[in-house]
């Protein structure tokens, strides 16, 4: 089962705006890509055309791991607005 199929089992109510933002000037200098390796939902990837780091906020499990793993401080992370984001039915 792919990670996308796993996330498809979860209930999400997605807001229009992302609750995660990246500082591309920091990402540009980063070699380790801590975010890609630590995100349990596999939401981070490098855009091959632009070379920019991108994050799919819509499948976010709201753990905050990326914010902590990125020791360079590129990840600005807030909780989604009240009533938005993942809605765990089991937890």
């Amino acid at each position, binding site marked *: *089962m792919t*990670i996308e199929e*796993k*996330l498809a*089992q*979860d209930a999400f*109510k997605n807001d229009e705006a992302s609750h995660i933002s990246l500082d591309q000037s920091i990402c540009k200098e980063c070699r*380790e*890509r*801590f975010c*890609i*390796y*630590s*995100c*349990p*939902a*596999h939401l981070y990837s490098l855009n091959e055309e632009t070379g920019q780091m991108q994050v799919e906020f819509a499948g976010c*499990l*709201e*753990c*905050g*791991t990326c*914010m*902590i*793993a990125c*020791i360079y401080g590129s990840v600005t*992370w*807030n*909780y*989604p*607005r*009240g*009533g938005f*984001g*993942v*809605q*765990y*039915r*089991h*937890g």
Partner: protein
Amino acid sequence: MEKIDVVIVGGGLAGLSCAYALAGEDLTVLVLERGDFSGSKNVTGGRIYLGPIRDLIDDLWEGAPFERHVAKEALTLMAEGSSTTLQLSSQKMNQRPYPSYTILRSRFDRWLADKVMGKGVYVVPEKRVDDLILDDGRVVGVKTGEEEIGAEVVVAADGVLSFLAEKAGLRKPFEPQHFAVGFKEVIQLPREKIEDRFGLTGEEGMAHLFVGSLTKGMMGGGFLYTNLESISLGMVIGIDAINRREPREEVYRILDEFKESPQVKRLIEGGTLSEYSAHLIPEGGINVMPKLYSDGILLVGDAAGFGLNMLITVRGMEYAVASGVMAAEAIKEARKKGDFSSRTLAHYEDLLRNSFLLKELETFRHALSILKNPRWFHHYPQAICDLYEKLMWIDESPKSRLFSTAYGELRKSIINLQGIKDILSLRRI
């Protein structure tokens, strides 16, 4: 600004326990929850130990929607090509009052919020708190969207990432070595199948931990808990360990490999995935504990960093409940004195220091620094499996004495200078 007495930010175990303990007093209390309902943002592995908290809220637990009481424990050491499992079936654990239960938080927290509402405290869903309102350095309320809510005291029960603790200047910046990420699947299986497969009767449950090759040398392990009609299967891995691993490993993939391992595959066979979740675990312990209170604010539960990786289990929910109740005690005291400044709220820390909570965190002060040793997660599980395999192996050549086989293996991989150092380091856990 008009003020109510207490605003509790976060309707999880810590916040709701605080609210429950405050209900019925002559206090106006409001709980603000950012999810659609309490529990909708909460994740556990999950197992809760009732021993330390049963008497703190003695009228609560009857009828609580736990999953199964844990009557069986298992620990599997995973190695390349082999594994060793130690299993405990305990009559003591299988007697009322049961010491621990498996639990799913969405259902549990929702139930607890209903209990709190039943006692007259309003839990408002879909309310994210954006900021604290400060007056001359003192917390006097919270901002949620356009709305401002004044309060004599704010209880920050906003979880492991606690932005409120940060805004109040109570905690230091986060570091990867003080956190682990837990991620798990809830896999549906018919009740009879679970009971049959794990040898359980009625509402007996099992807790099964896995340490060794599954985490590829990273600090952490795997867990399997039986729920009533599902299995919680997941892993906990230190974020610093993920950051430092070479070659790099995308962490989400190793759960799939764990699921595919022969030790796990047969246990979840025929099950269907119904949810994938993730949550951070505070593991820094007492060494990185934030300041727990200030004028007009208290930190409880994960927001206060009350979590502990004690090798054989990861704790947190009991701390959430206990700290919530103790915060409530301190608030009642402050109300009596009419003083919500840090001078009075300091009573909260006194209560914690005299309880199991800070005593345990103190006892396990060095646990994390010992657990950082990668040999626990790779070398020793492999060595123990190799030893066991060698003892049981019989082939065409005449078998050596069991003692010399065991001694030879132990000398090679455990009883040497490094091994003795490692074993001695365990004295501090």
